[in-house]
């Protein structure tokens, strides 16, 4: 079954090439993208089943044996991430196709959109599967370059401004990552993750700490950990809704995945545990305080995104099986929920003409379906029982109490406070945008009105009669949002097996040997 491993990277890349060839034919492009991403979901699911039954699957790319050639490794953690991210990208693709068709493709110029979107998927999959530090860097670069293009689609003034900050910060983090790779290679003479395990263990402690710090710094910027997170709310809200949704769901989580991988496989022993825990509590609290101060839904959601990265770091910083398992569970939950909320925000923007809360109101009465689509994932994010957000936080709190240290208790308190403040922030959105009387400025029904303030350019407001709400919120935008809301609920229903899976993955990560033995069956050279 190892032939499946490279497919999540190869298929989207071939799809990107095909969609590039089909430039003038949007219908054919749509079918190629949909087919490719559906196949990716299927392959990822098969990889997950295989890796949990038979241990990690390994492919030596190009047929070169492990330390010389590059390996792709699909262990349980990587496969789980692949399944969730592939499912989410598929849903967002359908949503963006729906939006593009309804708008006559103004918002998402299909010609560039499809190839770039598929390249982004390939980059994300490559980063998850990579068993080599430099290949991980290449994966990051692929997804980042694709994200630069997607973020500046249409190149309006606001997007150019946001894109500039985003590109420069991402470039800086890439350079730091590259320098770290150079140092790791100079110190050990290899970049293969499995081979690095022994060689890093043999290094003096100080050298290891420098290497660990450099990698953490690079991944910390990508994952938007607190002191390095200011770029995120500055850039994400200006992009088109589906782009923001997929960025929020996936890009920061790739950074979190890289932190989990390096902290467990390469640098076990928790020498930076204190640093991780301190940054975790700061990320949670400062992030959510930022969210409370916002008056725009997209910006508010961007701040909750930063804040909840703190929960994942909390689990990683505890360095126990339970903590790590809860962190992995939380990543899965958060990818789904945060994407859903951004998609719902996109629908709010279409229905209400804006995402500024002081210009919205009465959406619960105007569109009960939209209200449900926002309300359920919002409660899930805040951690209301019995949703998966509650279960993930419960696991983290248990792991923190088991740890018993002063810092762990501070984190438990910080986590609960953040949860409460998330509920407050979300309740504000609910009260202002959904529950109070409709705002006088809000058109009764607007057409393809994406707000001028987030777009930079005025777009003609097509006025449609009340009967034609389908044009405002096309079925192809509603359906994927409904699917993701349902997926979030299913996560709650299958939380038991999912937690077992993440515990398995966490145990494998902490033991390290399954990964190394899969790459080097005959012992590390």
């Amino acid at each position, binding site marked *: 079954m190892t032939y499946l491993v490279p497919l999540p990277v190869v298929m989207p890349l071939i799809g990107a090439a095909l969609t590039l060839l089909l430039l003038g034919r949007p219908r054919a492009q749509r079918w190629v993208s949909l087919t490719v991403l559906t196949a990716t979901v299927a392959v990822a699911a098969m990889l997950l089943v295989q890796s949990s039954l038979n241990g990690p699957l390994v492919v030596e790319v190009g047929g070169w044996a492990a330390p010389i050639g590059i390996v792709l490794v699909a262990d349980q953690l990587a496969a789980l991430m692949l399944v969730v991210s592939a499912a989410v990208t598929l849903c967002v693709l359908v949503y963006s196709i729906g939006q593009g068709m309804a708008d006559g493709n103004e918002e998402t110029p299909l010609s560039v959109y499809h190839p770039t979107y598929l390249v982004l998927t390939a980059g994300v999959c490559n980063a998850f599967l990579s068993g080599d530090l430099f290949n991980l860097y290449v994966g990051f670069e692929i997804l980042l370059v694709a994200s630069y293009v997607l973020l*500046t689609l249409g190149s309006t003034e606001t997007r150019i401004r*946001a894109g*500039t900050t985003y590109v*420069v910060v991402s470039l800086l983090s*890439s350079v730091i990552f590259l320098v770290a*790779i*150079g140092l790791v290679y100079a110190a050990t003479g290899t*970049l293969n993750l499995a081979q690095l395990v022994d060689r890093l263990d043999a290094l003096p402690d100080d050298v290891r700490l420098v290497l660990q710090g450099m990698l953490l710094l690079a991944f910390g910027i990508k994952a938007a950990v607190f002191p390095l997170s200011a770029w995120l709310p500055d850039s994400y809200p200006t992009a088109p809704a589906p782009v923001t949704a997929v960025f929020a769901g996936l890009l920061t989580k790739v950074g979190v995945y890289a932190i989990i991988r390096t902290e467990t496989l390469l640098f076990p022993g928790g020498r930076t545990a204190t640093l991780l825990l301190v940054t975790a509590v700061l990320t949670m609290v400062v992030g959510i305080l930022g969210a409370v101060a916002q008056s725009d839904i997209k910006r508010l959601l961007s701040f909750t995104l930063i804040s909840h990265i703190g929960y994942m770091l909390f689990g990683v910083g505890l360095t126990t099986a339970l903590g790590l398992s809860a962190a992995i569970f939380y990543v899965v939950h958060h990818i789904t929920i945060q994407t859903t909320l951004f998609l719902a925000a996109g629908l709010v923007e279409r229905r209400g003409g804006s995402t500024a809360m002081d210009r919205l109101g009465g959406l619960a009465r105007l569109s009960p379906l939209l209200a449900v689509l926002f309300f359920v994932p919002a409660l899930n994010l805040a951690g209301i029982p019995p949703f998966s957000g509650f279960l993930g936080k419960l696991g983290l709190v248990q792991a923190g109490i088991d740890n018993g240290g002063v810092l762990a208790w501070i984190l438990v308190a910080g986590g609960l406070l953040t949860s409460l403040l998330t509920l407050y922030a979300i309740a504000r959105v609910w009260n202002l945008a959904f529950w109070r009387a409709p705002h006088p400025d809000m058109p009764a029904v607007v057409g393809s009105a994406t707000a001028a303030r987030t777009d930079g350019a005025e777009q003609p407001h097509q006025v449609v009669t009340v009967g034609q709400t389908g044009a405002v919120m096309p079925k192809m935008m509603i359906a994927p949002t409904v699917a993701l809301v349902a997926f979030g609920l299913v996560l709650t229903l299958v939380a038991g097996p999912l937690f077992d899976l993440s515990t398995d993955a966490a145990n494998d990560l902490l033991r390290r040997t399954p990964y190394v033995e899969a790459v080097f069956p005959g012992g590390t050279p």
Partner: protein
Amino acid sequence: MTPNLTYVIVVGVLVAAGVTLLLERSLTRVLMGVILLGNGANLLLLTGGRAGGAPIVGNTPQEEMSDPLPQAMILTAIVITLGMTAFLLALAYRSWHLNGHDEVQDDVEDRRIMALAERDEGPDGADSGDGDDDDDDDAQTDNERSLAATADAGRAG
């Protein structure tokens, strides 16, 4: 494999100059900074491998071969830097096209929230109720206008 001090100093100078330029507002200078930083990182990669003859079997004895892997990595990194330089140039050109300059501007919404915080007000006047929405809007538009002016002034300064 002994580290070469000249390399290390050159890397240090390149990175220091790169970071200084990166902190500028003008996108063209930022671009120069990115190029210098990238070159610094590439040179650092190069110092990580052994120096020697061309790594071709039959051409150079194995003990005298240089380490080809850092060179391969540098080639990849150079290609990536090249692509990014082109993209940043396009961004700078587009920014100049739209604004007549290529300086990175502040986020207006962010400035608005900061100004509210300085005046010790809530994130939106709408918290106070439904009745006075119109007043709020007027206040907000004035506010935005003055803030846009502030942002412009900040950029010019």
